[in-house]
């Protein structure tokens, strides 16, 4: 499977941590109030983070 490129739109992210908690692969981390893409290589492109982000703040692209 081709790898993913995760885009966080920092201006929109409100730091709710839903994406961090629901990612099945532990790709994301909280960095104080913003989400940080910690392990992009582990992403399986399940789209959970993008679907569940209430703030349109994270996008899963094909790398």
């Amino acid at each position: 499977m081709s790898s993913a490129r995760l885009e966080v739109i920092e201006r929109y992210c409100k730091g709710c941590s839903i994406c961090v908690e629901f990612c099945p692969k532990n790709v994301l981390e909280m960095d104080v109030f913003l989400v940080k893409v910690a392990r992009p290589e582990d992403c399986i492109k399940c789209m959970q983070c993008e679907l569940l982000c209430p703030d349109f703040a994270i996008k899963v692209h094909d790398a």
Partner: protein
Amino acid sequence: MAYDYDKSIRPGKLPHIWCPGCGHGIVMKGLIRAMDTCGLDRKNTAIVSGIGCASRLPGYLDACTLHTAHGRAAAFATGVKMAKPEMTVICCGGDGDGTAIGGNHFIHACRRNIDMTYVIMNNFIYGMTGGQFSPCTPTGAKASTTPYGNPDPVFDISKLAIGAGATFVARTTAAHPREIDKLITMGIKHKGMAIIEVLDDCPTTYGRRNKFRSVVDMMKHLKANAVPAVAASKMTAEQLAGKFLTGVLFQEERPEYTAQYAEVIKKAQGA
């Protein structure tokens, strides 16, 4: 790969006003995907709401939108649909807006079976005004107006809609994003009144007071206690305690109101 929501949102409107973790944003994304799936022409789509945090939703969308008076979404939407039956009409709003002050409009729109889709975001509380209890606040739960626990029995919105005559009724939760757009899509395609109840989270005024330490706790609760209606028939009452049924709960065909009214117009014109 990443979904293009931007083309459906009015330029410059994001970030939205909802609190961190508020499920209304998840529902809005589901509604956008459903409108895309149905291929809706935004110039021919009316999205109508009342007042409340949930009712802010249409203001973000690039379509024909109406932000009306508290509880009156269904009434305004009925007017739009009667005047322009060719339009797709979608209502959205909260549990307070739709079942407290607007309960009357809600049940009568269901009774008429007018062709519209009503997405009702049930976060169990009046979020916007600081967490007063709504008809959907669980018995025993704390609200700003029920500091000792809510003594009231609860409205089951989906059952209310079925009883009142809606011909498509479905329920899901903010923790089931793919089901949100699937059910709204079915609702839009259904000819008649479609109610899509989305159990939602309000971390700010409901979660905090009710032992959910974070919005993630609330989302996990919604995820863990949803039981697909098809699976529920094989479960005992004991197993179903504290659970909520999801998926399509009711569906039937019945004459649609604007079509019936077109017949009245024909008769009145002596045709």
